[in-house]
């Protein structure tokens, strides 16, 4: 039996709509998770650099634990395992909403935040120590020194690695289909189940992921060149 190609069927009509709505969900879940993971990652990094022992300990175990377990297992844990940890009322309140999507966001956020925290920490380390001391000597508190002096400089250096973490997040978001979030990968599989034209559906969705990745990495390259250019002057 020769395989009949039919890209038309996959990119137009009802199935084309599915792909588009899947892409929408992928972008949405990635966008929300990127913002949240950046915030959480920054908090964790600052906690880890604070001098308060329990906070340092907490931040360190957070990063180590979530970096060193598979995202897929974390997704399952949040989706199926959170049930017996949270109070019943909270559960039912959550379930009445888009719980699948929320779980996807939580899993992606926490997992990526652990990596982002490490990137930010190494970025902060790249700023000479005496800067912090100097700003403290000027009368700034630890948090103020972080927020106004250290972090703005650190972020400039760590933007490229941060963006590659965001890119990982977009790619990792394909895993949320295992808990029923209807993202791009989920839709590709749905189309396969309905039409048996998996080849075309997977090709189209792979190309979409690739396009997103290539556009972003081109952006990073431009940024790198510009920053390098600024430095060389």
């Amino acid at each position, binding site marked *: 039996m020769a*395989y009949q190609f039919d890209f038309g069927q996959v990119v137009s009509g009802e199935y084309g709509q599915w792909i588009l709505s899947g892409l929408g969900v992928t972008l949405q879940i990635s966008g929300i998770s990127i913002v949240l993971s950046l915030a959480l990652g920054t908090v964790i990094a600052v906690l880890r650099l604070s001098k308060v022992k329990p906070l340092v300990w907490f931040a360190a175990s957070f990063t*180590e*634990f979530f*970096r*060193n*377990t*598979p*995202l*897929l*297992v*974390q997704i*399952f*844990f949040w989706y*199926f*395992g*959170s*049930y*017996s*940890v949270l109070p019943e009322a909270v559960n039912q309140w959550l379930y009445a909403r888009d719980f699948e999507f929320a779980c996807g966001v939580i899993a992606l956020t926490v997992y990526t935040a652990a990596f982002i925290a490490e990137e930010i920490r190494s970025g902060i380390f790249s700023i000479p120590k005496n800067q912090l001391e100097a700003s403290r000597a000027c009368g700034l508190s630890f948090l103020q020194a972080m927020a106004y002096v250290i972090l703005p400089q650190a972020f400039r250096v760590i933007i490229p690695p941060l963006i590659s973490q965001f890119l990982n997040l977009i*790619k*990792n*978001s*394909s*895993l949320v*289909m*295992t808990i029923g979030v209807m993202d791009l*990968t989920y839709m*590709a*599989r749905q189309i*396969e189940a309905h039409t048996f034209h*998996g*080849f075309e559906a*997977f090709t189209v*969705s*792979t190309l979409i*992921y*690739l396009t*997103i*990745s*290539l556009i972003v*990495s081109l952006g990073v390259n431009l940024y790198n060149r510009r920053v390098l250019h600024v430095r060389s002057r």
Partner: protein
Amino acid sequence: MHWDIVFRNFDYFLIGAYPKGPLGGLAMTVILAVGGIFGAFWLGLGVGLMRISKKPSLRWPAMAFIEIIRGTPLLMVVFWFYFLAPVVFGHTLPEAESALIALIVFTSAYIAEIVRAGVEALPKGQMEAARGTGLSHFQAMTHIILPQALFNMIPSFVNQFVSLTKDTSLAFIIGVNELTKAATQVNNRTLTAPTEIFITIAVLYFVICYCLTEFSRYLERRINRYQARGR
């Protein structure tokens, strides 16, 4: 809490139905990870060397390969090899093998970038000096450049191994009997202890990956000290 379910099935998590049935669980995870890193190292080394080659006919395919693979989610790569590779190969591959190939191909793109970074980090003079003593480009590469570059990059390889170990969990989606699959099987049968089961396997993965991460940090310190002494 139903920790008894975890205890009763702990052997299943570790080795699957072995020895009465097929090997599975954590043992399969380790096999996938070790086999994967071995394959990915050689394939990645090849692609990485092509990538830094001066010949466009070698450099461009390598670049395309690296960019395509790194721009695609692993899950997609797994699906490609599982559902569509037989169309190309002409015969089927067992799930574990097709997952292994997907993991090797995926990881090799990242290894290639590590190899490239390692070689490019070495001072340019090394190559010139080696060529100056009469070595061919190939000889200089294999005897002078690569040993140093790869040695410096050992921590990065170990980190990649950690990622790979986590990535093996995706093999579950195409039905390979590894640790995540074992967990979902037990969870599907009992339906009473999802929290306990997923915490348990998270800890199992964590123990392996954390030990490897610490090992990589230790190596990094050792290598830094070694280089500092050399200067």
